């Protein structure tokens, strides 16, 4: 049993207190944007924000959430982090980051948490913030580019609503 907020809505969860937050989100609230990948805080696919901090929901029992505010990928653009979240999502689309997409909710949540505190992270700071988020498709390079791009847009003005102009891609070399 625990009372907490999810995406601004109060929740009184009366199930077993050891139930991981991940499964409460996915199975009771139908918030399936938060993913199961490992169940032991290894991969970051289940990342949400609890009290603004990036948190792995697969190992967070509801009993630890009393009075806390949980934000998921579905609610992150309607929070105090909305501007950062929109910048991150726009950059992800602009840089064509996603592949299978399964880990990307977690990647986005980790990036929002990072850029919310530091809009100009160094490579080492990006590594530190993102190393807990595994992507088997290997989108890391574009994730890095998108974080830089989102950070830059946050410093210059409001996040774009739609995807900006096409990015440069490798041009085929004339044989």
């Amino acid at each position: 049993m625990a009372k907490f907020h999810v995406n601004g809505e109060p929740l009184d969860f009366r199930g077993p207190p050891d139930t991981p937050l991940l499964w409460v989100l996915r199975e009771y609230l139908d918030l399936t944007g938060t993913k199961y990948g490992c169940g032991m805080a290894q991969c970051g696919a289940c990342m949400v924000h609890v009290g603004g901090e990036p948190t792995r929901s697969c190992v967070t029992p509801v009993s630890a959430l009393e009075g806390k505010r949980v934000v998921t990928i579905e609610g992150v653009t309607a929070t105090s982090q909305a501007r950062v979240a929109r910048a991150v999502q726009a950059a992800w689309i602009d840089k064509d980051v996603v592949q299978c997409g399964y880990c990307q909710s977690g990647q986005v949540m980790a990036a929002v948490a990072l850029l919310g505190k530091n809009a100009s992270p160094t490579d080492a700071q990006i590594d530190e913030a993102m190393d807990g988020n595994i992507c088997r498709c290997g989108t890391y390079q574009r994730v890095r580019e998108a974080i830089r791009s989102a950070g830059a847009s946050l410093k210059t003005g409001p996040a774009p609503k739609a995807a900006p102009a096409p990015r440069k891609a490798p041009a085929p070399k004339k044989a």
Partner: protein
Amino acid sequence: MKTVDRRQFLKATAATGGALVIAFWLPQGARRALAQPQVQRTAPPNAFLRIGKDGTCTVFVKHLEFGQGVTTSLPMLVAEELGCDWTRVRAELADAEAVYAHTAFGVQMTGGSSSVSNSWDQLRTVGAQARTMLMQAAADQWKAKLADVRAENGFVIGPGGKRLSYGQLAEVAGKLPVPEKVELKRAKDFRLIGKPTRRLDSADKVNGKATFGLDLKRKDLHTALIARPPVFGGKVRSFNADKVKLVPGVTHVVETPDWVAVVGRSFWAAKQGRDALEVEWDLGPNAGLSTEALGKQFRELAKTPGRSAKKAADPAAIKAAARSVVAEYEVPFLAHAPMEPLNCTVEIQGDGAEIWVGSQFQGVDHPAAAKALGLDASKVKLHTLLAGGGFGRRANPASDYVIEACEVAKKVKVPLKVVWTREDDIRGGYYRPMYVHRVEAGLDAQGRLVAWSHAIVGPSIIAGTPFEPMMVKDGIDPTSVEGVPDMPYDVPNLDVTLHTVATGVPVLWWRSVGHSHTGFVVETMIDELAAAAGKDPVEFRRALLGKHPRMVKVLDLAASKAGWGTALPSGRARGIAVVESFGSVCAQVAEVSLVGGKVRVHRVVAAFDCGLVVNPLSVEAQLQSAIAFGLSAALHGKITFKDGRVEQSNFHDYPVLRMSEMPRVEVHLVEGGDKPTGVGEPGTPPIAPAVANALFALTGKRARSLPFGDTKWA
């Protein structure tokens, strides 16, 4: 203009809901890989394209989207010829239907880096047919000749500038006969193909809306977790479910001779239930299996004559060589470990059933599911959902996870999703096989290669599957040897043998299949020979690639872009590899250093010839992806056995590449032929040898056994 007349059997289905629907069947001559035919259906979903009244063009994608971008690249093929407004194009994954059979393999499937190449003529033809029908509909309305109308960006334009949108024309056009002959554009006229085009699925994948198999919701849906034997081939002797039944939410415990399933109203209930289950297993014949013993067995076998895959013209040449180099290589079993663990949802409805699964093998899984359910295949509907990766694991000739789900569903008679935990995935088998290679090569006094004798030892992926009769020739499974008997190097006396060993471990294709190990061995060995001959690795390769100018071009491009031969900062070195696979050629130069004695990859320069490039943005992404996947295996990947059991279980002991280990990847594309060739896999084989060769250049030490990321090299 090119004319297409392939005697296709074409049929326009009746327009439904004011939509133009085109169905397209290949002739009976299409090659069938499997004995079990798919069920032929005649229902309207047998279509590749639907144009709605609002002008939305929906392309039904016959392949699985699991990262490689087919829900963008395949619609591009249709849209190029259709002449529609690209911003109105949508993609939907197609259900399992005979009409969606792979044009080369004969069943609906995704694999072999062939989604674009096998759809190349098919989907452009669909687009051209639809455009012709829309133009005809407009011409009829205007009482004009077809020649006097043209199509442009979603409109048909007629005499005097009259315009009708595709949406306005769709219903009438859908009732017209499908033209058998259509002219396809020449490459120089392409407006979309070849242009960097962003994915259509990004928005839903960054806001959490994309629905993967694991996200599927159905009324009264139950979740099942399965307790499988801890040793492959084990059986259930007995089990005690007393404690399971005390777990709130657990609804059923069911068994087969091979496993016990715990069913609950939620994942967490089923998981806790399974944790509480006590099973006594009959471990079966593989209880003594160990990697150590397998390695010893494989290495011994490698020294004995195997089955011939290629005979040297002069078997004595190897012994007559002035100098010989002998090297033994070893690669481990590997799990695919896609981010989304396997799952399959089954709902039995009277004498029929519906299945939802992110499958690479709809054409195999669909009949297998019907058989497992004891239902007529025509009454079973299999829906394709997005998959969170796959890398071959979701293309199992044995349909293991689909059949299991059907078997549980049949017993419990409730809507059911079988979910694999990560531990189930890592320990569940169907691995890339372990192999040992023993290579002896001879050089003459001038350092020229005169003979190469190559023994491969390992399990067969194809043995025992429906693919065996058509693929295994003279006892040689081509996936065990591909890239060796047909290596591009001009080796005067190439001798290749294979020992196929049954280990009891279920094995399967894994991104780049045989090339995942043969690419490593051939490209490391050739580097060893260059060193033995005292020659530059690029020069040595080039001299042996006289019959493969395409490979030389790619090799040279990678070398020049990487600054091959130029100085690097102290403590860094480069290595190169070039591999042809899936009709494409990829060369990579890796730049490495040692950090704390362990290898660290900083930069990878990749040159790639994949024929005609459909979407450069997607090709670049796939190379980054293939390199990350191959590097993950080169540095960390290994599944090992002790006392019959898999020693790994999750990402803490089966580590995969993370952000901090990702090198900077630079991609250079060579414009190739007039057709697209493979993209998803060919970037994987060169990375392990490129890194191993760079390590040699740096330390003088050879990494002949994968993985080597934990080894201290200094």
